[in-house]
């Protein structure tokens, strides 16, 4: 039963519970009209302590397309956080007004703290460089629609794997499935955190390589998950400048990829994927963004116990 539960980390739900969400998302895509009044009378609160375009808009669009309403703030300066209010006090107040909440916060673990103080469902919409479980829902729905299932595939992850929360959540999710392999492409300084390598990948016996070049591995991949080197995660601007242009996917590199290797990216993109790649049918990142709304509709319906 997902009703009343929160999604803070991909390990919060079982494979079967995720299956329920994806099945509903596929049904919503087939017949969105059927769900257009499902959330009438319900309110979704969006607490965004950090900027967001896709995630916030897709949650808000998801709730509106379900017939519900939204309240919230899109930057902390327009909330009591600017006055020094704690996360616990803010979320307890929001619970008085809303049925379900979404939180993005620059500090890692902030949604976990918030969840300890409320009983309404709470969704982590990204906490610092830690986790972003609903981006993973988006990614998995896209993978399923492109290849049917997530099993028995080689996944390449490229760019900032250290602070890339979307990477951490997706690896955590995929590590529960049979036959997956990871090729982790990054500069040494931006490799996945120790807990991902030791506690998730190695403990689940997933074959993986950590490499610093993209070209030699392009031909092995079923999916290439590109990520942006995020300026906001660096304490030192020099490090950011040194690392930001290390991996750029262009049509020269795409020549090494198979005809059915798909390119995913959580967006926003800066320059890590050349614009010319957008026209290639293997580039699926804007499809991914659209799927994000549908899967968030499914998640809201499940957590509110409506479906």
């Amino acid at each position, binding site marked *: 039963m997902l009703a009343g539960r929160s999604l803070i980390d991909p390990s919060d739900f079982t494979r079967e519970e995720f299956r329920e969400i994806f099945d509903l998302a596929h049904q919503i895509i087939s017949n969105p009209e059927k769900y257009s009044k499902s959330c009438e009378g319900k309110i979704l609160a969006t607490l965004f302590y950090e900027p967001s375009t896709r995630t916030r808009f897709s949650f808000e669009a998801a709730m509106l397309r379900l017939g519900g309403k939204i309240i919230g703030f899109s930057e902390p300066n327009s909330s009591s956080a600017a006055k020094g209010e*704690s*996360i*616990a006090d803010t979320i307890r107040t929001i619970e008085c007004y809303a049925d379900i909440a979404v939180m993005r*916060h*620059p*500090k*890692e*673990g*902030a949604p*976990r*703290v918030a969840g*300890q103080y409320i009983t309404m469902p709470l969704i982590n919409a990204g*906490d*610092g*460089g*830690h986790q972003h479980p609903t981006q993973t829902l988006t990614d998995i729905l896209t993978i399923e629609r492109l290849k049917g299932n997530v099993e028995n595939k080689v996944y390449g992850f490229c760019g900032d794997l250290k602070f890339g929360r979307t990477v951490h959540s997706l690896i955590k999710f995929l590590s529960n499935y049979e036959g997956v392999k990871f090729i982790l492409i990054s500069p040494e300084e931006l490799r996945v*955190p*120790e*807990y991902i390598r*030791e*506690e998730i990948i190695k403990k689940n016996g997933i074959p993986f390589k950590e490499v610093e070049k993209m070209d030699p591995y392009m031909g092995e991949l079923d999916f290439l998950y590109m990520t942006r080197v995020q300026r906001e*995660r660096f*304490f030192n601007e020099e490090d950011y400048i040194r690392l930001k242009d290390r991996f750029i996917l262009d049509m020269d590199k795409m020549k090494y990829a198979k005809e059915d290797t798909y390119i995913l990216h959580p967006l926003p993109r800066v320059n890590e994927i050349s614009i010319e790649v957008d026209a290639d049918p293997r580039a699926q990142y804007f499809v991914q963004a659209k799927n994000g709304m549908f899967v968030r509709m499914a998640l809201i319906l499940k957590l509110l116990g409506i479906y």
Partner: protein
Amino acid sequence: MLEITSIEKGIVIDHIQAGYGIQLFNYLKLDKAEYSVALIHNAFSQIMGKKDIIKINNAIDIDYDFLGLIDPNITINIIENGKITEKVKLEVPKVVKNIIICKNPRCVTSIETYFDQVFHLVDKEKRSYRCEYCDDIVIPYPK
């Protein structure tokens, strides 16, 4: 040879890795104790070479989780009428609360501190722990 008289009723914390006795002493707030307490640093040990010992001449509650976290090989002897009446076997705790502080500057615990700081055991041999909130892995007391 330095001699510390034996105690009548209390606790002897033995086989503390040399150098860690002072941390334990401070954590147990023994500097504020009104009963007699001895911290012996670099005592000779056949097994360990050097060790620290703490003798507490009073029956007090000890946080065994903290001792197990520092070193599960520490020996605790409970003394009654000048004799050992109980030996406590320590274990590396699976969960520790409010003992370790997360050092990840990106962790929520770096800005908000009104809730428990919780860490979960990752590797018993290394005695490494994972922060409940940010998943950062630390080895709070390296061997």
